[in-house]
């Protein structure tokens, strides 16, 4: 996962060809608990860094998911609609949320895996 970057809002970003795949971290899914519903952004939507573009609902609460980079939403993980539990069971793989085609370089405050692990330790 060396090519994966992490945001302070507990999203992960992985470049895959021309698009960045985005999901939430294992730490985030663990804090949320059992996910029962996810509200995904519309394909084609232009998003800014830090914009709330998806919502994840667990038994416990609703939480926003933010765009960790700017660009255009080009794909969403429709498997989550019928099986939102993928976010708990495979947060960094099959539980991805959406793909964004970046309109520039990735924000430079994204962390690498070691930095993110250290950040989580401080919480």
């Amino acid at each position, binding site marked *: 996962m060396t090519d994966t970057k992490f945001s302070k809002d507990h999203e992960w970003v992985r470049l895959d060809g021309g698009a960045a795949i985005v999901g939430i971290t294992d730490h985030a899914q663990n804090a949320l*608990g*059992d996910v*029962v*519903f996810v*509200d995904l952004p519309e394909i084609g939507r232009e998003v800014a860094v830090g914009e709330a573009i998806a*919502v994840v*609902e*667990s*038994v*416990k*609460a*609703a939480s926003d998911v933010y765009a960790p980079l700017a660009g255009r939403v080009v794909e969403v993980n429709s498997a989550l609609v019928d099986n*939102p539990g993928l976010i708990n069971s495979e947060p960094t793989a099959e539980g991805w949320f959406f793909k964004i085609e970046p309109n520039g370089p990735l924000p430079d405050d994204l962390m690498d895996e070691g930095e993110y692990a250290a950040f989580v330790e401080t919480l």
Partner: protein
Amino acid sequence: MVPFAGYSMPVQYPAGIMAEHLHTRAAAGLFDVSHMGQAELVGEGAAAALERLTPADVQGLKPGRQRYGVLLNEQGGIIDDFMFANMGERLFLVVNASRKHVDLPLIESVLPRGVTLRPLADRALLALQGPGAVAALATILPDLAALKFMGVWEGQGMVISRSGYTGEDGVEISLPAEQAESFAKTLLGLPGVMPAGLGARDSLRLEAGLCLYGNDIDETTSPVEANLVWSIGKRRRMEWNFAGAETIRGQLDHGVSRLRVGIQPQGRQPARGHTPIQAGGLDIGEITSGGFGPSVNAPVAMGYVAREHAADGTPLELLVRGKGLAAHVAPLPFHPHRYAR
């Protein structure tokens, strides 16, 4: 762990809310609800004194029995909801943690000479809930097997009622705080018993259609609006001698403008507390409690709607994050009560 009413409380144990909820409905969940306020009323006239504040029939409650009631202000608003039990020579009360600092001085203020309120701050409360709860407990306290729903047993320093806040059979156990930890460990060692936290307690009571004070009822809601008229004693509806009686009488005679109802959102998306409710584009109410019901396997909610929209099946629109979510009025409870009547 989260702060709740001045206490540090577990939202969930490692199993998580979903597993704790489903296990409680299938076997037994153990909840530490020691934050709840406990008190005793002792002395001649204690029941009559309490009836000044509640429309429940306190004087008619038989020894060894427990009942649900609401404490009302002079406007008929709900100061708190509570449980009271006739222990023979005294009344045993359980009130909400967030309201005990209001309730106890209020009760104190209406007591005649010779009646004493004793707060029981040094007692813990454990709730063992679920279809396997009483069978498990009866392996160490055999007397409990014969106790009926809303019956109360006393012995070995404990007061045990066959009641709870989940819609399931089960008990609530009041005991000295210094014995609570070891007794909780004993209960957790019984077959089928799993610890459960505040999160599961909330989803269980919501599916059971039970009110949470501060969400579904407060000083601005009356028991008529809250659909708690069943907690008003028959005799009390002839005497009208409780706080707020005039307002309650008027509401029973002429109806209320809003009612608490069950609300079933369509699809999978939960609608949480404070979600606006619309019908035909007009605001007609607000959700007061909402979430995902693990046993119903669907979102569930309750809230207040204008009376003309309160019939079962009435279509509603919930405004979740600015988007309309289709829903309808649904009968409560969402999950059938399974009490040992």
